[in-house]
């Protein structure tokens, strides 16, 4: 199959970028989107041109490295799939495909389609951990967790931190990411000691990084390759409110 790519090209973070067109011919419909980009890059290298820079790692939809806004939707046209798990059969022969980097103040473009998503790391450092007892292993099942809660925590833990929620949100809000990361720990008994500080610190780190605010449109959830529900945002709001109220009345350190 043959497609025309309109790709964002930008030399580095300080340069101005622009769209460029490339025609890719003789593609196999069973190639992934990234394999198609590999083919385009091979041709560019042969012609002595700069290949298109794009982020990728596992190529099996679990690492969250690949990104790209493909035809106006993060990770392309499929529902619940990452860019690496999007195949050329999702497009029609002769299509023009628009490929842009994720856009957000907190995700500055580094080169072409690569964005710096380390803002997510600072959010994780602010509260995405639990205190664990040092020493030998605890007995298995020493802490009972109900099936419902375990399932819900697993749903939140499915987040691969790709940033599609930020990219899809009209306000570049990271609420779905933060709520999934805070939610998975806040649901479980292991996460209880830091529950309140986790939610307040992670929300503060999110605001600090320059993400927008949530206006409850749930584009994030629709774009999420792991289909994480906006229900976790509601849970985070609830936890945040409860932590703030408790903070008002809690004893202060001497």
């Amino acid at each position: 199959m043959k497609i025309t790519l309109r790709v964002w090209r930008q030399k580095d973070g300080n340069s101005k970028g622009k769209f460029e067109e490339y025609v890719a011919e003789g593609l196999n419909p069973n190639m992934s989107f990234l394999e198609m980009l590999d083919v385009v890059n091979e041709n560019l290298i042969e012609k002595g041109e700069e290949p298109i820079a794009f982020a990728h790692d596992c190529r099996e939809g679990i690492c969250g490295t690949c990104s790209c806004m493909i035809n106006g939707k993060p990770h392309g046209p499929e529902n619940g799939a990452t860019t690496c798990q999007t195949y050329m059969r999702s497009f029609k022969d002769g299509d023009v495909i628009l490929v842009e980097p994720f856009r957000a103040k907190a995700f500055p473009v580094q080169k072409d389609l690569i964005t710096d998503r380390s803002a997510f790391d600072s959010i994780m450092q602010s509260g995405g951990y639990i205190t664990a007892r040092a020493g030998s292993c605890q007995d298995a099942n020493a802490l009972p967790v109900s099936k419902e809660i375990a399932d819900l925590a697993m749903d939140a833990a499915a987040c691969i931190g790709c940033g599609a929620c930020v990219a899809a949100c009209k306000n570049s809000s990271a609420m779905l990411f933060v709520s999934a990361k805070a939610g998975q720990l806040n649901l479980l008994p292991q996460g209880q000691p830091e529950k309140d500080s986790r939610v307040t610190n992670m929300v503060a780190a999110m605001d600090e990084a320059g993400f927008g605010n949530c206006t409850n449109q749930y584009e994030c959830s629709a774009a999420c390759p792991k289909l994480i529900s906006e229900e976790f945002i509601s849970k985070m709001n609830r936890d945040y409110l409860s932590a703030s109220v408790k903070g008002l009345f809690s004893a202060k350190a001497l």
Partner: protein
Amino acid sequence: MAVTGFILFGFVIGHLIGNLQIFAHPDKINAYAHFLEALGPGLWLIRLFLLATLVIHVWLAAQLTLENKAARPEGYQNQITMRATMASRYMRVSGVIVFAFIIYHLLHFTVRKTHGPEAYPNTVLIDGTAVRDVHSMIILGFQDPLISIFYILAVGLLSWHLRHGLVSMFQSIGWRTRTWSNALNKIVLVVCVTYFLGNTLIVAAVMMGQVRIQNPQLAGYACRTDCEICGLHNAAKIVETDDVPIDNQS
């Protein structure tokens, strides 16, 4: 936004219920308006509280918009919408038009400056109290089809604004959960449609002549006391049972 929105929602529902009294005898709504006006400083406290709530609501919305615009300095060439409802995407448009309407509405019926003095008549209640004739004022206000259409449009946009706002309110404080998010969505839809129809009913009833001016000075005739169409017979009963002014007893 959620808290101020909830207060304003509470107000518009109360306001609608108050306004629906136009379908009863004129004395009903006139006495109600007189009661509110007689609260004096209390009324001003309520008015200032509501105005402050509205200003904070608009202020927060503006702040939210600026922050959100700043969060994406460089936009996309193409971005599709997957799930966001039209109501949620046009909150600013509906909000700004409703805000403009509120200013006009206050000038029209509260400050009473958009029309000449003939649009703001007075009357006396059945017990002899001199009051503003709010009943006739509303009917006179909706004589102009342009104004009536503006009112219907504004409440339509407000209902649309509430369609997103009410669900959003629950999400923002964490009360929208999987268990009942679908039920909440349907309840809000019913509330918004009912709110719109309730308001439209008043304007439509006036425009179609179902609610008429009953002020004898304006209508050119006095109502008969035995007529049961608009509930005056109830008022007549009040005369029999309640305190009757001395000059009527003779």
